[in-house]
């Protein structure tokens, strides 16, 4: 019977504290009863082994004594949890990107390749942290059996309209093409007019950096036009066009990155890299001094490009999400709670 003793003790290790010894005693007596009923005379070690094997591993046996339905985050709370996780993740990523943008504005050294990797890994890390915090919060809610309010004030008329996520915005797309063509025209025929205009003399102070990048910029815009044209022709979004749009977006992001880094380099050369430090050194001849005007305008251009970069990244992420959504989100199932008179719901 030694095996049975060891077994019973091991089961006890995994039992809930309440009634533990009592359950163990009952288990012991049952096992011996069963053994005796099966075997005439003295049970052998093999008989014990076989019996215990049949009974099940200690953990499994102990598990059946735990209260039913133990969840980290139960079925009642889970839909709310999914919603909160989705929102938190998106907000988090956006905030991180904005912070990145601000960091770049104030310290242009941030945007080297290695440090970008660094920052990306930090972002991923903090996304994980945010996720675990939400999980822990909901686990606590589950532990204290907090019920979400579901069935109460729900008006069918408040349901959102059926969204056709595949439809394109025809007017918007046409406007985009037009605007892009205008932009290309400016870049091609008026490169000497790209800069800042100061009202007194209607003089244009050129942006020296953009000029060298005009070819790539034009290429990027043309790619965008191509995708838009195809889109208009196909009439709606499909996987191919989504991918193409993501691709041109990524190219555009790359071009913006080039522009931003070259602005950084130019500003560093002029010794006016950090925005804050430059602000500090602004003198009174602000707009009359051509040099400082130029520097300010370069800062402005850079800021505009950074914002464009952030917007582009967010848009790309959104498109990637829309591309992948059908693969990962399972169809919605509506659980039907069937109450048949059992009052075990407190």
């Amino acid at each position, binding site marked *: 019977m030694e095996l049975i003793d060891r077994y019973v003790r091991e089961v006890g290790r995994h039992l809930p504290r309440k*009634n533990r010894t*009592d*359950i163990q*005693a*009952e*288990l012991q*007596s*049952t096992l*011996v*009863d*069963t053994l005796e*009923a099966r075997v005439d005379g003295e049970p052998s070690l093999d008989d014990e082994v076989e019996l215990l094997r049949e*009974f*099940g591993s200690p953990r*499994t*046996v102990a598990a*059946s*004594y735990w209260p*039913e339905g133990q969840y980290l985050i139960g079925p009642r709370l889970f839909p709310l949890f999914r919603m909160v996780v989705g929102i938190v993740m998106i907000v988090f990523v956006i905030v991180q990107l904005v912070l990145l943008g601000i960091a770049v504005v104030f310290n242009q050294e941030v945007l080297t390749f290695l440090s970008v990797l660094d920052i990306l890994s930090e972002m991923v890390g903090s996304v994980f942290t945010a996720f675990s915090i939400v999980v822990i919060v909901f686990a606590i809610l589950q532990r204290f059996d907090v019920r979400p309010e579901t069935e109460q004030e729900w008006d069918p008329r408040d349901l959102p309209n059926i969204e056709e996520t595949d439809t394109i915005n025809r007017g918007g797309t046409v406007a985009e093409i037009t605007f892009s063509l205008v932009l290309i025209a400016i870049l091609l025929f008026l490169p000497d007019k790209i800069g800042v205009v100061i009202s007194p003399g209607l003089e244009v102070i050129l942006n020296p950096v953009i000029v060298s990048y005009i070819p790539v910029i034009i290429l990027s815009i043309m790619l965008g036009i191509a995708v838009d044209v195809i889109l208009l022709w196909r009439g709606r979004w499909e996987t191919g066009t989504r991918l193409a749009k993501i691709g041109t977006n990524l190219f555009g992001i790359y071009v913006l990155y080039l522009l931003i880094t070259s602005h950084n380099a130019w500003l560093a050369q002029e010794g006016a890299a950090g925005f804050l430090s430059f602000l500090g050194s602004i003198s009174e001849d602000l707009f009359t001094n051509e040099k400082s005007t130029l520097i300010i305008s370069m800062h402005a251009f850079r800021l505009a490009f950074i914002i464009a970069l952030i917007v582009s990244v967010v848009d790309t992420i959104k498109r990637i999400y829309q591309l992948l959504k059908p693969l990962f989100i399972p169809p919605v199932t509506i659980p039907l709670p069937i109450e048949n008179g059992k009052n*075990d719901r407190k």
Partner: protein
Amino acid sequence: MRDMMNDIDYAGMHEKLTQELRRGILVLATLSQLKGAKYGYALIEELSNQGLDIDQGTLYPLLRRLEDQGLLESEWNVEGSRPRRYYKLSPTGGKLLQVLTNDWQELVTVMDGLLIEGKE
């Protein structure tokens, strides 16, 4: 090959659904045999003799849960070859057994009707 695949699915599905059916009746079956006090192992034997096989791993936790819910009472009995925990219906359990038995009869009638209709 395809038929074999279907057979494997079929057997598994059958087992799963049968288990669900049985899970539904376990409580009533258990309560029905505990008008007089019995200990776990004897209860299993008796149910088995009458055609209902219950796993030890299922019955014992069930007995405790029913006791926690107030449907059963238990006490240790030290006479006999070893100490054994005896369970029997509590007064509440007794009343519930009656009510549930009626519910069961009604269900059986309804199901018979449904199943006959299905054959048509």
